[in-house]
């Protein structure tokens, strides 16, 4: 009997310990909050991330990702941490199938951690072209959802009944300073997703082992692989990187034996247009590709199927119709997907301070580069013999000409064929910079530099060039606030918004909120979700009815 008591005691202690550790673990992992439980394909899912202080040593860039139950990365983005908070968005692909998906996040420096965990969200996506949805995938074990305890420390003060298009005014009162992170949101309840989604603990696994656990600070790590085109074997040629639009920036990487290369694009915001080139004199052709930075979290998730009840079906159908009407009446807001901004991380251009800066527009028009070099470029020899052009630049320190070619750049991109210069007229060129000394950049040396900046920045001259790869890469997202469609005053136009509010609250105090309701009837949940300083997930919500 005594032994049985002992065993029972140990089992109880073990369970209590496990529960305790699970609660405490929220203080050492990222926690992702979404503004909704469901969305329509083509929508934008807004995410806020709690970043505990213990993770600050892993850098200040968080990768948000949307993963399918089969472990595929569907969309994502990188955002910068501010204090214990980061926020960003995931553009849900327009063609994404109806189903259950998972939003989670990671810091790149954590990727090799054996026990890498993140608290993320399960989110339903309904394909906007579906007419009726009768069944949907659900988690096999709903016990996987992390329970959100009720807290008495948060009070939502708002009326219970509203009419369509009325203004909702209320306050959220946080009674104490027990919370590390608080998010308030207001959204129309979708009965199915409300019941079948929530916070999930993801055990993240590194899928791309070639990506190093590099601490990303103020920039994203771009990784890729260089291979021989014919054999597919990894190549170990020096890879040069130029960024379109940042002519004073340049970088290089000497790949490892697997052909992997990595670049940190510091302070790069938006979608970068990259030019990659292997530095080679051989005729060998190569292939270069970028490897998406992704860690998977769905290995341990089991999926089942559930039939929808008629009210659940009706709510989803209404939501789909609402999206259709919204797109019909308001169109799709055009976002500049190509927007990109990057400041040179170096105080001077990578090739140093120029000795001569020539603006050809200040002179007579000249028909070709031979004339330009002869008339405008002091200390530059341009010779064209037997259809082969050569450049030489004077070494101003030793007062003689270098005996090899200078580094030649067009729009900041290294050029290895002098024929590109031959037919350039002075009217094509915005400016020419010349450096007349032997420059050093890392382990590379340049015998002078000739940098030509064209008026045309399209870089069309690169097209069809072998071993020149133009690739797009998403860098840090432009900081944006939750961009819900504004309420409309036009009574003739339908207003089908379902999300109204999504805000981080700073702590103790009374936080007023207000928003305009749409034409959508039903129940609206105003909820406050928070993480306590002791690492517990808590929730307070209030349901209001829209008639």
């Amino acid at each position: 009997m005594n032994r049985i008591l002992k065993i029972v005691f140990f089992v109880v202690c073990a369970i209590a310990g496990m529960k305790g550790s699970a609660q405490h673990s929220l203080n050492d992992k990222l926690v992702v909050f979404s503004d909704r439980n469901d969305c329509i394909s083509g929508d934008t899912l807004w995410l806020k991330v709690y970043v505990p202080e213990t993770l600050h040593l892993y850098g200040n860039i968080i990768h948000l990702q949307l993963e399918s139950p089969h472990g595929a990365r569907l969309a994502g983005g990188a955002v910068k941490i501010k204090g214990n908070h980061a926020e960003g968005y995931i553009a849900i692909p327009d063609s994404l199938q109806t189903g259950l998906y998972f939003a989670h996040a990671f810091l790149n420096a954590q990727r090799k951690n054996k026990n890498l965990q993140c608290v993320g969200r399960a989110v339903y996506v309904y394909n906007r072209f579906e007419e009726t949805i009768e069944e949907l995938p659900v988690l096999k074990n709903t016990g996987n959802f992390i329970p959100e305890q009720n807290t008495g420390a948060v009070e939502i003060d708002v009326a219970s009944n509203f009419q369509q298009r009325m203004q909702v005014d209320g306050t959220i009162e946080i009674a104490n300073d027990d919370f590390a992170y608080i998010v308030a949101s207001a959204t129309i309840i979708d009965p199915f997703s409300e019941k079948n989604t929530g916070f999930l603990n993801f055990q993240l696994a590194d899928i791309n082992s070639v990506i190093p656990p590099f601490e990303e600070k103020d920039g994203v790590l771009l990784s890729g692989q260089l291979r021989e085109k014919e054999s597919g074997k990894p190549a170990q040629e020096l890879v040069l990187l130029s960024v379109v639009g940042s002519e004073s920036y340049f970088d290089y990487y000497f790949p490892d034996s697997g052909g992997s290369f990595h670049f940190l694009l510091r302070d790069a915001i938006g979608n970068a247009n990259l030019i990659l080139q292997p530095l080679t004199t051989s005729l060998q052709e190569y292939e270069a590709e970028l490897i998406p930075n992704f860690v998977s979290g769905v290995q341990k998730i089991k999926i089942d199927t559930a039939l929808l009840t008629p009210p659940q079906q009706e709510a989803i159908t209404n939501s789909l119709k609402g999206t259709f009407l919204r797109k019909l009446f308001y169109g799709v807001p055009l976002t500049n997907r190509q927007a990109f901004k990057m400041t040179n991380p170096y105080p001077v251009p990578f090739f140093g301070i120029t000795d001569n800066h020539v603006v050809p527009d200040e002179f007579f028009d000249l028909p070709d580069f031979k004339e330009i070099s002869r008339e405008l470029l002091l200390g530059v020899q341009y010779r064209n013999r037997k259809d082969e052009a050569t450049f030489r630049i004077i070494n101003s320190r030793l007062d003689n000409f270098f005996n090899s070619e200078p580094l030649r750049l067009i729009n900041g991109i290294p050029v290895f064929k002098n024929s590109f210069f031959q037919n350039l007229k002075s009217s094509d060129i915005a400016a020419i910079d010349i450096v007349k000394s032997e420059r050093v950049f890392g382990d590379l040396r340049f015998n002078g530099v000739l940098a030509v900046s064209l008026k045309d920045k399209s870089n069309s001259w690169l097209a069809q060039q072998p071993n020149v790869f133009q690739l797009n890469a998403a860098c840090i997202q432009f900081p944006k606030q939750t961009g819900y469609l504004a309420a409309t005053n036009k009574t003739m136009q339908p207003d089908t918004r379902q999300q109204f509010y999504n805000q981080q609250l700073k702590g103790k105090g009374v936080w007023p909120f207000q928003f305009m309701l749409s034409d959508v009837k039903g129940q609206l949940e105003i909820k406050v979700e928070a993480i306590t300083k002791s690492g517990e997930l808590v929730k307070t919500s209030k349901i209001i009815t829209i008639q």
Partner: protein
Amino acid sequence: MSSIRKYTIATFCALFALAVQAQDLGITIYKLNKASNNMQSKLMGEVFTLTSDANYYFLYPGDWVTGTITLVNGDVHDKLKLRYQAKSDELISYNENGHFLFSVQKDQVKSFSFVDENITRKFIRLTKLNNQHSSMYLEELYNGSTSLLVNWYIFERTVSPYVDKNGLTRAVEYRLQKEYYLYGKQAGLQKIKLNRRALYLQFPENKKEIRKILRQRQLLVQNEQSMVLALSLLKENGIIE
């Protein structure tokens, strides 16, 4: 004679093979390795040609020492072979992969340090002086709201002809000189001599207090160490921040 020719040819071949150059590409690369891939940032500069004059008279310390460079963007490059070129106020580094010397791009440097005869010497680059753009390296002996900085420079003077270490006849002599400055962000650089009068002039309103403190501690300000100690005492007693 024949063997000399053979050796000469062999040496030239070896040198040619060592420098794996892609000369027509405009980029000279040497034996690149993992260390070449510093993803945070690369050091920039200009190839430095070492002359015997520079080696004997202008570069400090007397031999290459291991040091650290902190860049303006906060990146730190350590375990570098460094020397300070006092004549032209440049930091010279040795690139171990390429086996070449280069003067580090000044705009990139925030500070550098190296150990010279068991003393860690830290140089900072002064970027602003009395609201004017400036770019000069000064050794930092004391860091505070009022810092003690040293300007190293080479004084060149004409002397009677003499034969130097290399057997060359010379009529000039180079000497390393040091000038001391107190530096505050508001006051800028104030040239001083290492004595207590410099402190009285710098803080005239606290003259009596300073005299009392120095007397109590029996501190005679006459060299770098005693001036650093005096500034620490002034900080302790709240005269400077």
